[in-house]
């Protein structure tokens, strides 16, 4: 049986964080009342003309610089023509032959060194309006009685980042997406939240036999809006394609929908039905020639990027742990604690679980974390709860020393064990998870003042008997 490998390319769309829309002065406000953020330009009234948003262009260049893309000296907007109710002009202003950002690369640090994902291009365009299908039984397009269009979203600046088909697994695709998302967020150019629809992805998947050159026809999964479904969608596509090839079938390029309930893909549109977008240079706009000084200023504004931070933190932790810490944006807090004497492993755990403390409380939190074994649960949790919003004094919490005196804890534990003979039997029968139950009881009995470490030790000892 042949060994198959996945070939995946991703097109990631993010809404850019700007005050106004891409080509008009309408405010961008998530959640505003429907159709109140519109004007003659974004409703495509006769005679209205687009004017590009300079901030959106700067955001795009920033992203391009972070992905080591070639920044165009001469970028051209183009019209992508298609007819749909969410597109009032009958065309979307996008970039086609000459995008703002050309070839680049994105590096994913791993234990075995950096994995390089090529970037084909990144370009700027406007989003379409939002269509809501109403009435009917299914709530979907087919069977709906009528459709409503909210033009508030129409004209939102949209950045599309197209990767090369360099991704070889669902796992790698997710690592790419998570790190790319974190990079975008840290650049301050987008919230990139899939739940809010400010980040979406089109996923191109094909398979080939290991060692095979060239690519087979790809399936495109459109408008995927959750990391989980992207991962499952890729796996489903690979599964279905491999099964087809092994059954001796040939496949053609098509667009698919991922059905999460069935965990499989259903064909949406074949290549023959594909739209012909009739691209041509947008005559209402002059080309964008970003001045060198602007590009250099933006380069100077780039923060230290996530990939570089993963590499650095990976000297202290495993690459996977560093990746997780950085991809969630929690490495900054871990760094603050580590700088104040907390060991890296603990600092990482604390930052992953309790990342919300104010930077100004870092020293107090570090002191409390270091003394955690001697503190009451109450004091420890209380410190983190307060540290989110106000400046805390470590001494106040450090004074709440936990009861670790075995003489004091022994009778409490004895009585709890005596009161719960069934659980004791369960534990002795091999289900050691019950330990947590006993710890909880002891904590409850001591008003949270017992030292959990000592309680654990005592319990194990007594239960062994």
């Amino acid at each position, binding site marked *: 049986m042949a060994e198959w490998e996945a070939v995946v390319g991703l097109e990631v769309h993010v809404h850019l964080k700007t005050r106004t829309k891409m080509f008009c002065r309408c405010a961008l406000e998530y959640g505003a009342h429907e159709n109140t953020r519109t004007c003659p330009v974004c409703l495509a009234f006769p005679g209205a003309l687009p004017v590009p948003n300079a901030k959106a262009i700067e955001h795009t260049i920033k992203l391009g610089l972070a992905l080591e893309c070639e920044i165009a000296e001469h970028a051209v907007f183009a019209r992508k023509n298609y007819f749909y109710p969410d597109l009032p*002009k009958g065309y979307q202003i996008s970039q086609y032959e000459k995008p703002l950002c050309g070839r680049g690369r994105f590096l994913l640090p791993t234990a075995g060194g950096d994995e390089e994902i090529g970037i084909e291009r990144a370009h700027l365009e406007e989003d379409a309006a939002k269509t809501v299908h109403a009435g009917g039984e299914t709530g979907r397009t087919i069977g709906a009685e009528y459709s409503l269009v909210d033009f508030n979203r129409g004209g939102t600046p949209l950045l599309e980042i197209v990767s090369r088909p360099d991704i070889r697994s669902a796992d790698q695709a997710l690592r790419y997406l998570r790190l790319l998302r974190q990079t975008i967020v840290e650049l301050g150019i987008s919230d990139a939240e899939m739940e809010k629809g400010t980040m979406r992805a089109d996923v191109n998947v094909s398979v080939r036999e290991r060692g095979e050159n060239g690519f087979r026809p790809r399936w495109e999964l459109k408008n995927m809006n959750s990391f989980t479904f992207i991962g499952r969608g890729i796996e489903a596509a690979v599964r279905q394609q491999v099964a087809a090839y092994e059954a001796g079938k040939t496949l053609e390029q098509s667009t698919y929908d991922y059905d999460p309930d069935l965990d499989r893909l259903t064909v949406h549109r074949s290549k023959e039905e594909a739209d012909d977008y009739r691209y041509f240079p947008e005559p209402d706009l002059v080309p964008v020639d970003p001045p060198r000084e602007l590009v250099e200023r933006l380069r100077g504004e780039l923060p230290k990027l996530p990939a570089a931070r993963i590499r650095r933190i990976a000297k202290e932790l495993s690459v996977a742990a560093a990746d997780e810490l950085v991809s969630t944006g929690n490495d900054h807090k871990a760094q603050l604690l580590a700088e104040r004497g907390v060991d890296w492993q603990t600092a990482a755990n604390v930052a992953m679980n309790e990342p919300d403390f104010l930077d100004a409380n870092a020293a107090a939190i570090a002191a409390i974390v270091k003394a955690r074994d001697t503190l009451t649960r109450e004091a420890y949790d209380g410190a983190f709860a307060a540290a989110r919003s106000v400046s805390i004094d470590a001494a106040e919490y450090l004074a709440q020393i936990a009861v670790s005196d075995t003489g004091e804890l022994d009778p409490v534990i004895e009585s709890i064990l005596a009161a719960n003979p069934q659980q004791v039997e369960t534990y002795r029968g091999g289900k050691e998870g019950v330990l947590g139950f006993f710890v909880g009881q002891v904590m409850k009995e001591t008003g949270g003042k017992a030292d959990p470490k000592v309680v654990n030790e005592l319990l194990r000892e007594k239960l062994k008997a």
Partner: protein
Amino acid sequence: MRPTYGTVSRYGVVAFASSLDQVGPVARTVRDCAFLYSVISGKDPCDSTTVDVPPVELPDGIDLKGVRIGVPKEMNETEGIEPGVAAAVQAALAKAEELGAELGECSLPRSVEYGMPCYYLVAPAEASSNLARYDGVRYGLRVEGRDRLEMYEKTRDAGFGDEPKRRIMLGTYALSAGYYEAYYGQAQKVRTLIKREHDEVFERFDLIASPTSPTVAFALGAKTADPIAMYLSDVLTIPSCMAGLPGLNVPCGLSEGLPVGLQLIGPQRSENVLFRVGHALEQSLGFDPVPERLR
């Protein structure tokens, strides 16, 4: 007059062919035309294709000393030009020479040969895209149908006349996958060539002159059945339009009792020169815009 592309804002103008559309003043005299132009021209933040213009000089006087006028032979000796039209234009040019201008022959072979076919690719392509918004949903005419698609179809069928429909079809075809390079792409290259050919001529001349149209006005409806014959009326104005250049039309005489237009074309943003020459000829030729039978 048709000003230099980009000197007058297109904001608020229903778009037909965006890269060619240009707002221009129409007035009884060249001086009025210049005055109106001074008001409507200049950079507009709502139209990013607009540019700053040099201060407009209102024309005064009839001295044309030092002005070099090129006479492109393809635009003055082409077959389709009616003798009466040619004669009136020649008389106007002779007058210009009298006023001190220097005349010289020049040539724009490719602009004249390819201008028209090039225009009929670019203009319909852009029009097909610009006219997509008239779908009956948000404004304008709507003809109801059984469903959305039928409503679109009926609305567009009723709302557009034959010529827009012809151009939408032509333009959609010219932009289609597989045809773009051969048609729209090629037309854009030819456009660059036309610009360059004009630039070369303007190295030797301040402006060029020709009839505005090969014929005088034809009877209403005379060419409706023959679109190609109709298109040919524009053969002399289209090349400079494709190059984004300014053109001024000045009535210069009669042929068969109907007015003949003299066309003056200059390099980009040379409106002041066109106004100066147009005004001098208007003053000297003594053309009376009021038809004889109405005097």
